[in-house]
């Protein structure tokens, strides 16, 4: 094993240690900045795209004490170049962005899925499975996992937290077989064990359409997790309305409908703290629309013009510093508008810019169906 591979294994081990220690509420052996800067040094040496970015910005991880002083890799770069510290022959998995937007798909290669799994399970447990629901049934809406990180994560949750798992199927051109889903929900409603219904927001929209207004009362302790937007995938439904519809359809309290925020380019996720708060557990935010990052993921809003970090509560476009991204980019810059305060991130959608002038194609339009 060469030195780079040894270093990679060491870093993955340190990050998993950080995740496990911090998730259990204990002291961590590493501090965030030390570990983040060590990962940034490793990536500067082994991720050519990151090395180019650092050279262009005339900064090096060895000369800083905080990862915040380093440039973040924009999500678009994952579409245009390989962002990985290891060779393709060492890929254990490649997660890809949705292929529905017409543009090339972004790729996030991983040399191991262990760290991703560790992060996903730890924070999923914090937000969704903290009560270790007994005899849980997992219903996953939508197609198989394919190569999406979300599909991988939902499969992981079903494997680790549920005793029964059901994945909906497509039928006669419809994305979700409503009769099949109704039968599963009926059976689950009669059982004495809680259920988690999981899927993307557009999968929930399709599911609600497929169920045609049917109502179920899932057993006490049941919950739902939804994530992502709808652009180009289904009719658009406002988040509040979708949450109400999900709650009404499955017989859940709206606080038990938990939003997740994640992306292919990250290895960690954020969740609304509504279900925890409902059960009397601590959470930095108990509001819908506010997403709580885990201790191994730091989020800061940045100035849209300069990409420089902004102060707390100032709205800007979000930058993520994710320790679990050992193999790719410790810091990822998105175009999502948000505000960070009180340990949670409020998502604000797209920047409220003036309407585009002229007839040049807007990037947004390219993303339209």
């Amino acid at each position, binding site marked *: 094993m060469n030195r780079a591979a040894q270093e990679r294994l060491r870093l993955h081990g340190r990050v998993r240690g950080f995740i496990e220690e911090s998730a259990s509420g204990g002291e961590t052996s590493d501090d965030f900045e030390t570990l983040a800067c060590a990962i940034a040094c490793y990536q500067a040496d082994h991720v050519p795209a990151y090395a*180019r970015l650092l050279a262009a910005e005339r900064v090096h991880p060895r000369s800083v004490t905080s990862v915040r002083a380093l440039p973040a890799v924009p999500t678009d770069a994952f579409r245009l170049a390989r*962002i990985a510290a290891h060779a393709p022959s060492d890929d254990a998995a490649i997660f890809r962005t949705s292929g529905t937007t017409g*543009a*090339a798909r972004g790729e996030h290669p991983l040399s191991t899925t262990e760290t991703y799994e560790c992060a996903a399970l730890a924070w999923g447990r914090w937000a969704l499975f903290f009560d270790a629901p007994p005899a849980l049934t997992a219903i996953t809406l939508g197609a198989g996992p394919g190569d999406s990180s979300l599909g991988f994560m939902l499969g992981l949750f079903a494997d680790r937290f549920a005793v029964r798992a059901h994945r909906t199927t497509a039928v006669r051109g419809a994305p979700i077989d409503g009769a099949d889903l109704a039968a599963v929900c009926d059976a689950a409603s009669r059982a004495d064990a809680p259920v988690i219904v999981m899927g993307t927001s557009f999968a929930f929209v399709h599911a609600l359409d497929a169920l045609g207004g049917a109502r179920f009362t899932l057993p006490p302790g049941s919950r739902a997790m939804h994530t992502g937007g709808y652009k180009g995938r289904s009719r658009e439904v406002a988040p509040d309305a979708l949450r109400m519809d999900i709650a009404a359809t499955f017989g859940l309290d709206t606080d038990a409908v938990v939003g997740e925020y994640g992306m292919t380019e990250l290895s960690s996720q954020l969740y609304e703290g509504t279900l925890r708060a409902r059960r009397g557990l601590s959470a930095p935010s108990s509001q819908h629309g506010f997403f709580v990052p885990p201790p191994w993921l730091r989020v800061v809003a940045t100035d849209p013009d300069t990409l420089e970090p902004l102060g707390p509560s100032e709205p800007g476009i979000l930058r993520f510093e994710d320790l679990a991204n050992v193999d790719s980019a410790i810091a990822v810059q998105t175009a999502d508008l948000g505000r960070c305060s009180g340990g949670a991130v409020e998502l604000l959608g797209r920047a409220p*810019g003036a309407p585009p002038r*002229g*007839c*040049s194609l807007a990037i947004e339009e390219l993303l339209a169906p």
Partner: protein
Amino acid sequence: MTRGEELTIEERVGRVHDVLAAARRLADPNDPLGEEARRLLPAATGLSEAGVELGLSRHLETSASDEDLERLVARAGFAPRVHVLLSANVFVAVVRAVALAVAASRSVRVRPSSREAVMAPLLHRAAADATGGAPFAICERVESSPGDVMHVYGRLETIDAVERESRPGVRVVGYGPGFGVALVDARSDPLPLAAERLSWDVIAFDQRGCLSPRVALVHGSVADAEAFADRLAAALDERDRQVPRGALTDDERREQALYHRTMSAVGRCHAGATFIVGVDPAPRALMLPPSGRHVHVARIEETSDLARLLEPFQNAVTCVGRNDPESSMTRSLVTLLRGARSLPLGRMQSPPLDGPVDLRGML
């Protein structure tokens, strides 16, 4: 003759000539209306004064060959009444939009954009001063009837909305957004010349036109692509001194910052005061930079690269600029982008007045 009767070819051509005559007045800085256009358009468009002058003096259609007018008339079709809904478009586009409409119908009503409500009324005033009066009317509201045709310029969502809300029997013809792609064959013209020409295409209307080049494909070596990007950056720097860029929107500024950083990671980035030229020497995919004055330079080796890279954009490219019309790469690109205009570098923003700018679906 009632409004429902079809125009003769001669009448159609004559009506277009009336519009061009009016446009000539606006192009003339010594004409009171030309002076008024120069005074009002910077605020209405966001362009600098020099940017407006460039549009009026270099890109405003003021004449056309007989052959081009023949094609325009043929493409215009006929309608008893045409409504033209303008967007906050490239301001000179008003002339072509009106020309196309008056060639199609005796009764033309033009609704200016609320955000750029200068050019269409000025053109109307210039035309109204002529002996026969203006061949079109300006209106604030569209009141369509069955049989009418609506020419809608704007974003896809605008066109879709008009289509949804239009009365039964009204035909909506949409002219949506797009962008231009330049193809530079490194073995043809010297690269500095190609860069110089392309820079003029880029700066026109601060790249907000549907013909504006935002991607340049360089057929050649990595060194060729990088040399072209160097020269293009130098040319854009020079253009900025001659024709300063206007103000950017919030979205444009944000996308500019993200594009700069993305290309710093992916390849190389030449950033000037008002432009970015990003270079991807081994493109896995193409990135569309924001409008403003930014060009994404990607090196291509084989004709198969074209399909691979342009597949997601195939229906969005309205114009191909090229420095070698006879090269196999150019022929492959034009074939791939069926419907896109093919124009020499430096002329991408001045297509012949032979129909709508966007010929997609017509070729």
